[in-house]
Structures are given as structure tokens and as C-alpha cells.
């Protein structure tokens, strides 16, 4: 419950502050969001599996975001940014799907 409130607080904060993203960081923002979502769904699933660990969650969140942004940055420098970000989104999307399926099994037993 607190987590949901924190999420809402973050959304409100983002909408209210409305920060301008530096142009250099703009291409990495969507990828970073997807990576962060992956970490969060992993965390929720771990919670339901009763193996949640704060340290693991924090580390996976930060490293996911950084690694995803780094891969896309590298791809941009090598001229394959679009393809690499597609690859990152596919891998993260598969993980999100798998974790959401596990969460669903936990919640609905189906």
C-alpha cells in the first residue's frame, strides 16, 4: 500500500515539477523507464514468492537502468542505436511478461 502511495507521489512530483530533460538524455529516458519497470515487476514477484530483498531490489533497479541506458548509448555511438534499443526492449519485455505471469499465478491461482 505504501509502495502504491509512493508511486503516486512520484507521478505527482514528476507532473508538478515538470523538469526539462537535457536533449542528450532524451533517447535514454524511455529505455530507462522500461528497465525500471522490469526491476519493479521482478521485485513484486519476489515479494509474492516471499524472497524479496531490499538490497537486491535497489541494486537491480539501478543497474538495470544504467545498463539499459549504457547499451543504447553504445549502440548510438556505433550506429546501431535503434536496433540495440529494440533488443533491450525485447529482453526486458520478455522478463516483464514472465514476471507478470508469475504474479498473476500468485494472485489468481490461474
Amino acid at each position: 500500500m505504501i509502495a502504491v502511495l509512493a508511486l503516486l507521489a512520484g507521478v505527482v512530483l514528476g507532473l508538478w515539477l515538470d523538469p526539462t530533460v537535457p536533449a542528450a538524455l532524451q533517447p535514454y529516458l524511455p529505455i530507462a523507464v522500461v528497465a525500471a519497470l522490469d526491476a519493479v515487476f521482478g521485485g513484486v514477484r519476489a515479494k509474492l514468492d516471499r524472497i524479496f530483498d531490499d538490497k537486491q531490489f535497489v541494486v537491480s533497479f539501478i543497474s538495470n537502468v544504467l545498463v539499459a541506458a549504457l547499451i543504447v548509448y553504445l549502440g548510438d555511438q556505433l550506429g546501431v542505436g535503434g536496433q540495440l534499443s529494440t533488443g533491450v526492449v525485447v529482453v526486458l519485455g520478455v522478463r516483464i511478461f514472465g514476471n507478470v505471469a508469475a504474479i498473476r499465478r500468485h494472485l489468481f491461482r490461474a
Partner: protein
Amino acid sequence: MSERVGDDDERRGVRTFTPDFLTELFRNPLDPGYADAAQARARRGRSPRPGWTVSPVSLVLIVLLGFLCAVAYRQTTAEESGRAQARSGLVAQIKQRQADTDAMSERADQLRDEVNRQREAQLSGSQASRLRNLAASTGLGRVRGDGVVVRLEDGPSGQDGLGGANVGPSQVLYSDLQGVANDLWGAGAEAIAINGQRLTATSTIRNAGQAILVDFRPVTGPYEVSAIGPRSMRERYEASRSALTMRKVAQDTGLSFGVRQVDDLTLPAAPEPRLRYAEPAVSPSVSPSGSGSPSPSGGGR
């Protein structure tokens, strides 16, 4: 649920990396670190946090996630509006240029009329009438007279219920217009215009994507092919192949096709043709020293 490849190793606390990354990714999308941490905790005899509470650090991260989502959303919508602005700017530019072109071609028409008037004032009667006749038959002069108007219109879209509104013959094709124009010439037309675009000997009727271009200017339906010609033209056209084909097509699909006699048609002049001049091919066998240089500065004196 599913048996892991490196289960024994993991029980001993050694993380293994399976060779098939994708299979592993699909089978177990959860970070292996959670399992490790849980095992480590179990070894140390600590129980996991009860319920749904999370540590402050995790809370901060979740706030950050919401923040990121909101910022990314804002960013995307901002980019969208920028794109829409650029698009509407381009559309406005196109409209402006089209209006400019129209105004200039109108001015050109006026000037051409002026030139014609001056010329006719200078020329003798027989020469002037010969010139007028030539201009009328080549499409360079405006003509008035009786004739027929062939009207074609796309059928109502989406009538076949398969979302294939753009396929099939319910749309007027450029070849239909070509056929109509050719058969009108064949039926004795002296001047033809499609939607006010006069056809000359060098006119083209082509398609580019979904649009039909007459002399590189797009025309849109309903298409009206106006032709000036003798009285018998209508009958002869009605018996032509394109008229019969289009009647059948109009019967089978929703396309509409009609031929009617119209008195006192006025067809505009075609734009001045860009004249192309033939040039003699330069044959490589001619030696440059023998023929001398045909430069204008050298030959002038």
C-alpha cells in the same frame, strides 16, 4: 515448477550460467539474486520482511520510478506537439506555395492573352486565323464550343466489408482516365480537358501512389473529362471500348460513370510547353584539331 539445469550447483551456492540464454530468460525471468539473497538469509536465520512493507530505500526508488514515468510521458507528449507543429507548418507552406503558383499561372495566362491580342493586332486576318486554329488544336489556346462531358466518380468506400476499400475497381484508375481520353480523341474530339487541365500532345496521365497526376498536377475525384468536338462525337464515344468497359464496371461496382452532351463548353489553355531541342550527337571520331573551334568569340570577327 520447472526444474532448473543448474539446480544442484545453486543449492551449493554457486551461480551457474546456462548456455542457452533465451531459454533461461523465458523459463525464469526473475533475477537469480533474489533466490541467492533468500538462501543467504535463511542460512543466517533471518526471516523476510512481513507483509507489504518495504525499506525506505526501496520507497525512494519507487518514487523515482513514478517520477521517471511522469517525465517520460511529459517528454513524449511534448515531442508529439512539436511534431504536429512542424507538420502544420509544412502544410501551411505547401498551401502558400500552391496559392503562389496559382496566382502566377493566372498572371501568365493574362500575359499570354495580352501577347495573343497584340499579335493578332499586328498580323493580317488570314495569318491570325491560321495561328488561332493552330493554337486551338495544339492546346495552347483557350477554346469554346459544344461537346460532351464524361464524369467518373469513385464508388463509396468500404462497401465490400473486408476493409479493402482501396482495392478493386471501385476506384477510378489512371488507366480509366487514359482510356476515356484516348477514346474521346478517337471519337473526333478537338480539345480535351480533365478537371480543367487541358491535354496536349505531350500530356501525361499517370498515378503516383493513390493520386492521379495529369501533367504532373494532382487531380481528385469526381473526374470530369470535357471534350469539344463534332455532334457525332457523343454517339461514337458511347460505342467505344472505354465507354462500354466503364459502363460494365459501373454496373458491377459502386463506381459512377456518365456521359452527357453539354453546349458552350470552355476549355482553358494548357500551360506553355517546355520546348526541348534536339542536339546533334557528338561523335568521338571527329578530331578537334581539324574542324576548328566553333566558339562564338573566334567566329565573330
